[in-house]
Every structure is written in structure tokens, then in C-alpha cells.
């Protein structure tokens, strides 16, 4: 009898402890129990550190030319196609002009990490605002959003980026930040619509719920309802969608760089952004017969960072909305 009571109280304790955790804490707990997602986070953090400390970590100056040491294969290659042997000093080999590939790849991570994060904040802010207005007020906001979506449905993103970057490349905006600003702007311009549509859908169903009705019946202002009652409920899907968007933007940057349209590679040693993985791949492509390893290292980096963001996105989706588990 007594032990039964103790057990009962213990279980009551346990449930109370569980209740006292906020939804965000519970989601975090689910996320860090997901091994694959944790692997993704670790990789992302290491790439971030690489990007921030590229100037400290790189063994050579990324724009320093080493004459007579062009086209060296990576250090572990005994004999490349052209008979050259890798040198331990140049871990991933050198490019046509004898620049150290490892240092250049390190610096390249800066662009990819910036492209992944910088536009995301604009996208989330703008997308949430327009989606909220469209879902809550409907009418003109909603029409605007839906017509815009119809147009974008027909206009493949990549084509828009290509055209925008080609034509605005030599204007004032295109010159700003070596062309990176224009890229961020174009990415944000296209991607916010996806967030807005998700928020709109959520708000449409949420505003029928009792708690919104209750708030409205006691005279809470519209702006209060939107930001106090609706916003906390749409954060989950927005974060999940945002994390799935980041790898897409990194890939886009790499493709555009590969087409010679992204960051303009600089020879200014003081510049923060020296080169990008996309332009490194462009360099590699032009000499693919002579030195395939040049293409390999930026490609592996792109693949790794994209995989880690996908892992994180999957983990976040499962953690924030367990019902959606396993869906696309």
C-alpha cells in the first residue's frame, strides 16, 4: 500500500517535471537525441569556424603565386597523370598559378556560409510578415501573394538569378561587396515567397481556432493577436522551411560561381571574401583533364555542407513537429 503510494507520487512528480519544460526545450531535447542531426550541427559549426578563422587556419596566402609549383596534386598522391608528386606543404595541391588549394577552399567557405545565413534573416522576416497579413486579412494581401506565386511557379529560380546577375553585374549594386550583395538580394527576393505561403497556410487554419476567437472576443487588437497568439505557433514550420532553404541557396551560389556569375574573385589580399567554392570549381573545370583534383576539393565541401544542412533540417522537422516525421 505504502509503496504503491510512493510510486504514485513519483510518477506524478515525473509528469509535473515533464510539463514544466517549455515546447522549445522539448524540441531541443528531441533534436540532440537525433544522431544524424547532431552530426549535421557539428559539421556546420566546423565549417562556420573554418569560415571565420580562415585567415588564421590557412597555411599559405590564398592569392600568393608559387612559380614552378603549379598543378601539384594533393599531398597523398604519389604520381599524378602528368608525373608530378604531391608535396606535404600543399595539402590539397595547387592550381594553375601555383596557389594553395587548401587555403583557397578555406577562404571559399566564407562565401558559402554567408550565402547560407545572410539572406535567410531577410527571407524569414519578410516572408513571415507578408504571409501573416495574407492569412489574417486575406483580400488584397492574399491576392498579391497568390498572383506572385503563380508567376514564380512558371519562372525557374535559377534562370531568374542568372538573368538578374548578368544584367545588374556592372551596376552600382552589382559592384557592392564584389557582387555578393546582389546575389543575397536576388536569393532573398525569390525565396521569401515560400515562407510566406507556409505562414499563410498556418495562419488560415489557426485563426479558426478557439484561442484566437477567445482573444478576439475580449477585444484584443489585431496586431496583438498576430504577434502574441499566432506568431509563436508558426515559428516551427518557418524554422524547418528555413533550414531546408539554406542548402538550396548554397547550391545556387556554387552553380552561379561555376558559371562565372557569383562573387568576383579578387587579388586584393585585404579582402574578406577572396574566392568562392563555385569559382574554384570553375577554375577546376577549365583544367579537368590536367588536374581533376582541383575540382574535387570544392565539390566535396559543397556536398558536405549541403548534406549537413539537410540532416539538420530533417532533425528539426522531426523535433518541432513529430507528426510530420518521415514526410517530404
Amino acid at each position, binding site marked *: 500500500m505504502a509503496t504503491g503510494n510512493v510510486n504514485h507520487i513519483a510518477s506524478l512528480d515525473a509528469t509535473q517535471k515533464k510539463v514544466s519544460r517549455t515546447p522549445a526545450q522539448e524540441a531541443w531535447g528531441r533534436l540532440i537525441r537525433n544522431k544524424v542531426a547532431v552530426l549535421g550541427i557539428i559539421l556546420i559549426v566546423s565549417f562556420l569556424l573554418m569560415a571565420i578563422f580562415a585567415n588564421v587556419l590557412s597555411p599559405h596566402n590564398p592569392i600568393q603565386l608559387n612559380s614552378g609549383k603549379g598543378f601539384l596534386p594533393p599531398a597523398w598522391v604519389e604520381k599524378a597523370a602528368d608525373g608530378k608528386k604531391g608535396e606535404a606543404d600543399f595539402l590539397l595541391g595547387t592550381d594553375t598559378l601555383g596557389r594553395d588549394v587548401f587555403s583557397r577552399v578555406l577562404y571559399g567557405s566564407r562565401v558559402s556560409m554567408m550565402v547560407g545565413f545572410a539572406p535567410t534573416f531577410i527571407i524569414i522576416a519578410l516572408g513571415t510578415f507578408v504571409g501573416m497579413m495574407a492569412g489574417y486579412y486575406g483580400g488584397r494581401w492574399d491576392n498579391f501573394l497568390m498572383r506572385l506565386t503563380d508567376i514564380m511557379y*512558371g519562372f525557374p529560380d535559377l534562370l531568374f538569378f542568372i*538573368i538578374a546577375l548578368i544584367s545588374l553585374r556592372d551596376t552600382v549594386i552589382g559592384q557592392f561587396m564584389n557582387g555578393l550583395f546582389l546575389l543575397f538580394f536576388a536569393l532573398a527576393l525569390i525565396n521569401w515567397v515560400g515562407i510566406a505561403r507556409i505562414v499563410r497556410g498556418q495562419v488560415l487554419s489557426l485563426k479558426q481556432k478557439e484561442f484566437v476567437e477567445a482573444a478576439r472576443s475580449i477585444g484584443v487588437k489585431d496586431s496583438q493577436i498576430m504577434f502574441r497568439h499566432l506568431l509563436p505557433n508558426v515559428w516551427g514550420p518557418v524554422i524547418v522551411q528555413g533550414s531546408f532553404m539554406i542548402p538550396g541557396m548554397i547550391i545556387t551560389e556554387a552553380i552561379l560561381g561555376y558559371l562565372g556569375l557569383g562573387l568576383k574573385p579578387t587579388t586584393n589580399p585585404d579582402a574578406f571574401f577572396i574566392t568562392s567554392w563555385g569559382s574554384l570549381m570553375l577554375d577546376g573545370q577549365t583544367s579537368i583533364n590536367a588536374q581533376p583534383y582541383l575540382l574535387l576539393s570544392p565539390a566535396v565541401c559543397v556536398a558536405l555542407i549541403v548534406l549537413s544542412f539537410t540532416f539538420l533540417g530533417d532533425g528539426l522537422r522531426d523535433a518541432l513537429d513529430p507528426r510530420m516525421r518521415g514526410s517530404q
Partner: protein
Amino acid sequence: MSTYFIRRFLWLFPVLFIVALITFVLMHAAPGGPWDRDLSARQVDAGTQKVLNAYYGLDKPLWRQFTAYVFGDVSAKDGKFVCGVICGNLGPSYRVRGSSVQDILFKPPKGKSFEYSRFGYSLRLGLISLAFAIVLGIPAGILAALKQNSWADYLSGFISSIGISVPNFVMAIFLIIIFATGLHWVSVVPKNWDEVKAWVLPAVVLGFGTLAFTARLTRASMLEVLRQDYIRTARAKGLHERVVIWRHMLRNALIPVTTILGPALAGLVTGSFIIETMFSFPGMGRAYVTAISQRDYSMILGTTLLYVLMVSLANLSVDFLYVLIDPRIRLEE
């Protein structure tokens, strides 16, 4: 239902018009004209520029240039009306002197049939990779669902996660390094596109993402159907397992799979230009990339419009197909 599709079809025209407008405005926002940065470094002098501008109608006001491009205008040479994009005339190429954009895209080399034009090459590549994706993706998904949690399921799950998350150009680089520079099975830049061997790598790379997506979707859709009551009924009345799978499961499970065909085809079309460039494939995508590097504005504009038209038509026809094959879907007006 037919009004729905007529409305969808008519909506294509404003979309194309707006896309043309955006593209046109952006192209003309670029400083300088198409002549003054000829990459061949032979600078065109002012007098010649004037003549060229008059010849191509670039001396007219912008709105007039736009209407001339989209609808057509009276020719400066002989006063005849020349029809614009709506008649399929994409205008002269600014870089390839003497040929129009539609010639570059659709005209096969002398003595060859249509499939040897740039468009024909790209279309063939797209269809081959789509076939590759479907022929392997659907059986893989079915197998994974029927033998859920077996090694076949895990293997196909692993391969499809790679296919979905690794971008196709990265995959292309890996495959080139393994099969071309490593094993020497194919040459890095194939010269002769009449050989079947040369098509394997580009088609595999291009179709791999779609394959992964198809396999995943088929598996999910099959698992959904497996739990339905009518499957239990079919088994309960003693039908042979083969009949249950073929007639009751597949028929229902494959319906959602058709929906991805549209986006997949669109992805194959627009995703192809980077792959075509990597393999020096003589298709439309590479012509587009070349036009980008040469700043051939009319070519870029024309190819973009063509891409948008293809993507929209693919989406529309797939939506149509979906309604056609699934009698449960009734669109409300």
C-alpha cells in the same frame, strides 16, 4: 473541370508576358549596349554601333523595343511587318552574326534530322534521364515498401538520400573523376555523341536526383496503400498475392508518383545546362551558358522564355494527367 484547365492554360500568357517583361527590363538595366563589350576585343566604333543599333531596332524607345520583341514591328529595311515572339520569332542573335535565336536552338546541322539540333539533343538527354529515373526509381520504391526494413529497403533509402541531397554537378564531378580520369572507361569530354557510351554519364547524373525522389515517393505512397482496408479485403477474399500487388496496390500507389513528373521534367530541363557544360554536350543548355558568357542578350532572353514555356506546359499537362487518371479527384469550380 474543363473551365479549370482553360483558365490555367490562359493564365500561361500573362505569366509569359510578365516573365518576358522582367527579363527585358533586367537585360536593359545593364550599362552599355550589346556591342561595346565584345569579348573578341575588337571594339566596334561609334559609327558602326549606330548602324548596328538601327539594324536591330535598338535606337527605338524601350517600350517600342519591347512590343517589337513580343508582338512584332515594321521592319526598318523594307517596311514589312515582322512578327515577334508570339509567332515563334525570337529575334536575331547578337553574337552569332547572321542567324536568329530560333535557328541556333532548333536548326539541325546540314544534312541531319531535327534530333541533331541543340534542342533535339537536350530533349533526348532529358527523356533518357527521365526514363532512367522512372525505370529504376519506381521498382526500387515498390521493393523497399514491400520488404520494409529489409536490407533492400535500407539500401534504396541510403541511395535515395544521397541522390536527394548531393547536387547533380557535384555528382558529375565525382563520376567524371572515377570513370573518366580514374578508370578511363569514357573520355572526360566525349567528342562523338553518336556513341551510346558517351551518353551514359550525363544521363545518369541528370536523372539521379529524380530517381531518388521517385523511389522515395513510391515507397511512401506504397506504404500508405498497404494499410488500406481494400487491400485487406482483397487478401481476405483469397486473391493471389501477385494480383493484390499489381491490380490493387500499384494502381493506387502510382497515382501520386505522376505528380512529380512535371517538376521532375522541369528540373531536368533547367538543371541540364550545368551538366551539359561539364560534359561539353552539344545541347541547348550549353548554348545558354555560352550566351551568358558572351552576353548575347537576345539569345539569353529567347532561351529563358523557351525554358519558362516548357516548364509551365510540363506542369500544366501533369496536372491534367493527374485529374484524368484519378477519378477520385473532382475539382470544384
